[in-house]
């Protein structure tokens, strides 16, 4: 039996290859994702481990709201350092300063083009210093700076060149005195690091004598763990004390968690490709089972049991799965650096040092690849067992359909599944599973009903022939070949449907996402138009990064500026304390901080309760919440909330107003005053400044005045009019869209292999027909044309279905999930037309090989074939 399978593979090389590729590509993306993220994690883990090697104990501010939530203002002062030094067993302790900053060349171009932030660090006493000079020397003068080697190489920086460093204070220029390695590594991920003297680092960070952390060295004979507990005992609870090794592990874990999203993001695309692959395997196996009916019938006649037939088909799937998955794994290893390059191209610079292939990657990739293949081949395998022995003798024997389950069996199954689902639902306190069951049984019922309806008559699908014939109209005017292609494409509607559906998945997602993206762009535009009442928006040129709070006062000084209001974004853990009993809210929430006097002049608020006066009298005890948040947690006016701030403080806020803020708006769940954000939330940066012109001032003159100021002192920021802002947001959405399209292209590629496979199999079935056509005078060119048209129609069926499903899906999602949130629906007609053209091209591309094979058929051989 095993020999038979292997022989079969050898005879159907092209099919095995195409089907194998279908599964290999999905596995490759999966393996590539694991390898890429493992490599990144590993690179960071090494860097962290090395950099904390010479630190016995590290003191950092407590992150009250979880990892990476430390307040922008540190509570570690020189006095804290002194207290640590006085702990017995401490050989040395030094405060360390570091912050995010923007590095620019002297011509004001940014050094890192990617989204990875640049960091500035201050020099440490030599026993703690993680930097070593690879060239030149580490900064010793106040105007000197060392830059990490990877950045220097990437940006072609040389010793003696000037760099502008823009942090939380007005920018300053430094001379590169050295090229440095960090913890023995040339790069710190994709992050650029500039090393300054301690005083300059404090200036850039605007830390006013505070430190981000304290590095502690132990006296001989004192174990790090012992020292850590001694230091902990000497310090307030607002500080975290860890050993160097713990801190390295902590940093690594935080980073892995942050990169987890990247892994999930990429894996989604891998799974989409695998689902498409599953469709193709299912289709290929179904077709070959039909084509091999004689063979199966013969085997049955010779005494093969149904189980043996089943085993032979499943084994074929298993072999194919192993081949595809192993190939996928190897492609994945090659793909990982390519993915890295892809992200680089889209502005996310990730580290890449060596390739990390964990055994988990190998196991998961192989298991998933093989599992998907075997499962997809299972149903066709079961069908193969129903081939009657008579099929060996006669042509045109069809596989009998599965007998309909009896009514009693159906009811029993329904009740059992209902009980199970209700039990799960009760155990997990979740009702979500019940509708899923009902939907599943609804579909099952519909399928059974349609089977009963057409029992006894030939199985017919109606939608696909209608769709195929309609789409076929675009080729049927091309004479008999177009006409034949139109009919051939719907000859096996089930087969065409599954082939087209594989393409539909990829294209449907593209359509879905493009509609969502167009809506997002339209919503941003509408939101800006509706809410923004100022003239200019000042923000960091890099998305997600803040601007120094010194910007707003500086802009206020520019001639022609009427008023400036700064908006900043922080976070807190919100608890409801008005109600007795257990807190009904306990969630980490984004919080917007505003300047109450000027904010309403430049931002239009739609009040549910309250008015502009509410904001003016907000003070540090009041908050304004959104209607959505209020509804979600049943909050009313004058209720009191307790908020845990990033600084670890608890503030009590009273709800003074409720606003109808829409999906894309500045106001988060809670809005507080900037003063409170500074004092209790440790807020030191602003998110965005709004500017309005003084009456009678010339807009363009004021903007160029502001730009001149920003270029001089805050080169990381720029000013935009509402139109410029909207346009920039649009282009950011488009960049992200492009990334998604590139990743979805893989699924489309997989479905192309499916079309190729189906075409080759149908051509094989129609060999004699093609031979006859060639005999009575159809040219090779005409045969090629017919196959191409056929494939074009299949591609377009996939495209049309994808378009309909994607657009309808997006419309439903936005209508139900985002109703009342101000989401503006927008249909990107141009993109959707391009999608259809792409589907047509995909069909034509897939037809190349099969068309050539069909045209090359030997006429006599084809006529003689069965």
């Amino acid at each position, binding site marked *: 039996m095993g020999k038979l399978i292997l022989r079969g593979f050898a005879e159907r090389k092209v099919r095995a290859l195409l089907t194998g590729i279908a599964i290999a590509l999905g596995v490759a993306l999966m393996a590539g994702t694991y390898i890429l993220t493992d490599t990144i994690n590993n690179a960071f883990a090494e860097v962290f481990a090395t950099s904390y090697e010479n630190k016995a104990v590290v003191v950092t501010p407590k992150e009250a709201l979880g990892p990476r939530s430390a307040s922008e203002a540190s509570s570690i002062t020189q006095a804290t350092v002194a207290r640590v030094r006085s702990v017995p067993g401490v050989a040395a302790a030094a405060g360390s300063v570091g912050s995010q900053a923007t590095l620019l060349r002297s011509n004001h171009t940014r050094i890192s083009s990617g989204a990875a932030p640049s960091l500035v660090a201050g020099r440490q006493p030599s026993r703690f210093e993680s930097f070593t000079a690879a060239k030149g020397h580490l900064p010793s003068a106040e105007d000197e700076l060392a830059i990490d080697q990877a950045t220097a190489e990437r940006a072609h920086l040389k010793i003696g060149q000037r760099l502008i460093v823009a942090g939380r204070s007005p920018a300053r220029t430094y001379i590169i005195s050295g090229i440095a390695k960090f913890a023995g590594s040339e790069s710190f991920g994709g992050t650029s690091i500039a090393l300054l003297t301690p005083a300059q680092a404090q200036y850039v960070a605007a830390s006013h004598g505070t430190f981000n952390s304290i590095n502690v060295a132990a006296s001989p004979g004192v174990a790090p763990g012992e020292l850590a507990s001694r230091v902990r005992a000497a310090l307030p609870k607002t500080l975290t004390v860890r050993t160097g090794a713990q801190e390295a592990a902590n940093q690594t874990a935080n980073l892995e968690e942050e990169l987890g999203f990247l892994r999930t993001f990429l894996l989604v695309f891998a799974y989409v490709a695998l689902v498409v692959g599953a469709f193709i395997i299912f289709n290929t196996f179904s077709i070959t089972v039909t084509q091999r009916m004689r063979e199966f019938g013969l085997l049955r006649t010779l005494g093969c049991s149904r189980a043996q037939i089943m085993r032979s088909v499943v084994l074929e799937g298993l072999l194919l799965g192993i081949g595809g998955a192993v190939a996928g794994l190897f492609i994945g290893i090659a793909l990982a650096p390519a993915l890295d390059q892809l992200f680089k191209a889209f502005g996310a610079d990730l580290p890449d040092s060596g390739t990390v292939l964990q055994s988990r990657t190998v196991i998961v990739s192989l298991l998933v690849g093989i599992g998907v293949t075997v499962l997809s081949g299972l149903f066709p395998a079961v069908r193969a067992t129903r081939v009657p022995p008579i099929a060996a003798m006669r042509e045109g024997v069809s596989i009998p359909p599965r007998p309909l389950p009896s009514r009693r069996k159906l009811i029993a199954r329904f009740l059992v599944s209902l009980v199970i689902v209700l039990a799960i639902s009760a155990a997990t306190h979740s009702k979500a599973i019940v509708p899923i069951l009902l939907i599943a049984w609804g579909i099952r019922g519909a399928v059974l009903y349609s089977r009963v309806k057409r029992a006894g008559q030939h199985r017919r699908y109606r939608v696909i022939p209608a769709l195929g014939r309609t789409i076929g109209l675009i080729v049927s005017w091309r004479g008999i070949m177009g006409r034949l292609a139109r009919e051939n494409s719907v000859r096996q509607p089930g087969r065409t449907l599954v082939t087209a559906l594989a393409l539909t998945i990829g294209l449907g997602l593209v359509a879905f996402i493009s509609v969502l993206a167009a809506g997002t762009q339209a919503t941003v535009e509408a939101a800006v138009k509706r809410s923004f009442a100022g003239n200019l928006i000042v923000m960091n040129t890099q998305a997600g990064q803040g601007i120094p709070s010194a910007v707003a006062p500086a802009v206020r000084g520019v001639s022609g500026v009427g008023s400036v209001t700064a908006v900043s974004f922080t976070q807190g853990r919100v608890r409801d304390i008005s109600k007795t009993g257990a807190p009904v809210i306990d969630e980490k929430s984004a919080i917007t901080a505003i300047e109450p006097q000027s904010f309403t002049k430049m931002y239009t608020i739609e009040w549910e309760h309250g008015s502009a006066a509410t904001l003016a009298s907000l003070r540090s005890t009041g908050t304004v919440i959104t209607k959505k948040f209020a509804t979600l947690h049943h909050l009313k006016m004058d209720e009191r909330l307790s908020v845990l701030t990033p600084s670890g403080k608890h503030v009590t806020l009273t709800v003074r107003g409720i606003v109808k803020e829409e999906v894309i708006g500045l106001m988060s769940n809670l809005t507080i005053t900037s003063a409170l954000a500074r004092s209790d939330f440790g807020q030191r940066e602003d998110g965005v400044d709004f500017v309005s012109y003084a009456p009678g001032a010339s807009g363009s003159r004021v903007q160029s005045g502001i730009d001149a100021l920003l270029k001089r002192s805050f080169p990381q920021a720029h000013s935009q009019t509402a139109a410029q802002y909207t346009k920039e947001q649009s282009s950011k959405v488009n960049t992200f869209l492009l990334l998604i399209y590139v990743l979805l292209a893989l699924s489309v590629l997989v479905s192309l292999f499916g079309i190729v496979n189906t075409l080759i199999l149908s051509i094989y079935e129609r060999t004699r027909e093609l031979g*006859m056509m060639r005999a009575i005078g159809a040219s090779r060119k005409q045969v090629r044309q017919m196959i191409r048209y056929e494939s074009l129609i299949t591609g377009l069926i996939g495209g049309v279905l994808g378009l309909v499903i994607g657009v309808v899906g997006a419309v439903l999602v936005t209508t139900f999930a985002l109703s009342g949130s101000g989401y503006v629906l927008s249909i990107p007609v141009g993109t959707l037309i391009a999608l259809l053209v792409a589907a047509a091209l995909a069909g034509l591309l897939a037809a190349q090989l099969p068309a050539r094979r069909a045209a090359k058929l030997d006429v006599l051989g084809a006529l003689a074939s069965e």
Partner: protein
Amino acid sequence: MSGDQGAPIVSAVDLRRTFGEGEAAVEALAGVTVDFPEGRFAAIMGPSGSGKSTLMHLLAGLDRPTSGTVTLAGKTLTDLDDRALTQLRRDRVGFIFQSFNLLPVLDARENILLPLSIAGRAVDREWLDQLVSTVGIGDRLDHRPAELSGGQQQRVAVARALISRPAVVFADEPSGNLDSKSSGEVLALLRQAVDDFGQTVVMVTHDAHAASFADRLLLLADGRIVHDGPAGTADEVLDLAKAIG
């Protein structure tokens, strides 16, 4: 009596065809020279492996001889490339196959018109109507092959072979897949095509009854023509075939 009535429309000179190479080589045709005059019905018979199918394939331009020449409607086939050969088959040759070979996705009318459609030629309505009434499938024109009986399908195939008014129609065991009644009808149709329309027909068969519809009988054995004469009745054909054996 071979070439004395009308000019030859198909002729072969010293036709040889060898399959395989070296020791495994099989000579299917070992030097056949034959003319087929216009407007006549010839039947080619012979035991299995006698080379009768090979001869027909070579005459129809479906295969190329190892040596020798074939001339069809004034063109030497051996000089033509694949494209020209395809065009010649399309415009000058009609085919009737044992297994009908109709396209299942087209109805009877479309199947009949297929050669014209492939060539992109206009339909001669009168000729179509005449053919349809001759083969007697006027009421089945809108049906697809799956809805027709074997006899009806083969009659559609006959109409398809005649629609382009070819120089010659090659029929490969046209009655092989039919019951005796349908078989008789189809053969009578071929006879009628020759008598009424002046069509030249070359038929390969192993059925003596079928051969008796022809004007002339060629018997092949071991790749050579061993008899060439008038067809006569089925019994006469059978006796001849036995004698040659």
